């Protein structure tokens, strides 16, 4: 699923490990979500939205596969 995780994380100057620690998951999970290879569970998607202070549909776009490139 397309998502803007990578852009939002870099805007905040966070490392993948920092985000993984904040979410309580492994760094590999963050990497895979950013690459669009792993769709997070609903609770994890809600935590992502909370961490970035936005809505889930602002983070994820179900219309495409893979991470957002813009």
């Amino acid at each position, binding site marked *: 699923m397309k998502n803007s995780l990578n852009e939002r994380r870099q805007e905040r100057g966070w490392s993948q490990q920092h985000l*993984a*620690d*904040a*979410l*309580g*998951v*492994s760094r*590999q*999970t963050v*990497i*895979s979500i950013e*690459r669009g*290879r*792993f769709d*997070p*569970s609903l*609770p*994890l998607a809600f*935590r992502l939205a909370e961490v970035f202070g936005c809505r889930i549909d602002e983070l994820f776009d179900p219309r495409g596969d893979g991470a957002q490139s813009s």
Partner: protein
Amino acid sequence: MSVEPGTDSRTRWGRTRFAGGRLPALAVAVPAGLLLAIGVGAITLWTGVAHGEHAVPVAGVFALVMSWGLMGLVWALVVDRSSLRGAIDKPDESIESTWLDAAMAGAFRDTIMLTGLVLAIISITGFELDVLWALSGVLVVGFFSTFVRYLMAKKRG
């Protein structure tokens, strides 16, 4: 939710999941594993695995060899995994959990297929296979398939 760097009080071997997590897991695992190992040694003596002057040394060797595995087994049963240093808070929501689930599902299919294939070959050829080897083979196939499939999933990312 998260543990700030430098504030992680969790330990390498963790704490028990009972008694409010006050006890280090090793404080339970080591004595319990040793007691079980002594029990295994006693069973070796009782069942007469070795006779005469060799009986006690053989029982001692059995107990010694089994003690490490039994301590590890007890540790795995009593440890609270969230108390291990570096443990993640939500392992079930991490991608590793997805990899393991997929690997175990695939390994189950592999085991069923291979067992069926070997069973067919044995029934056609009339080859006699010892049940100990057969069951060991099923275990090895299951573990090996899970291991390989997990590594493949990890490599795919």
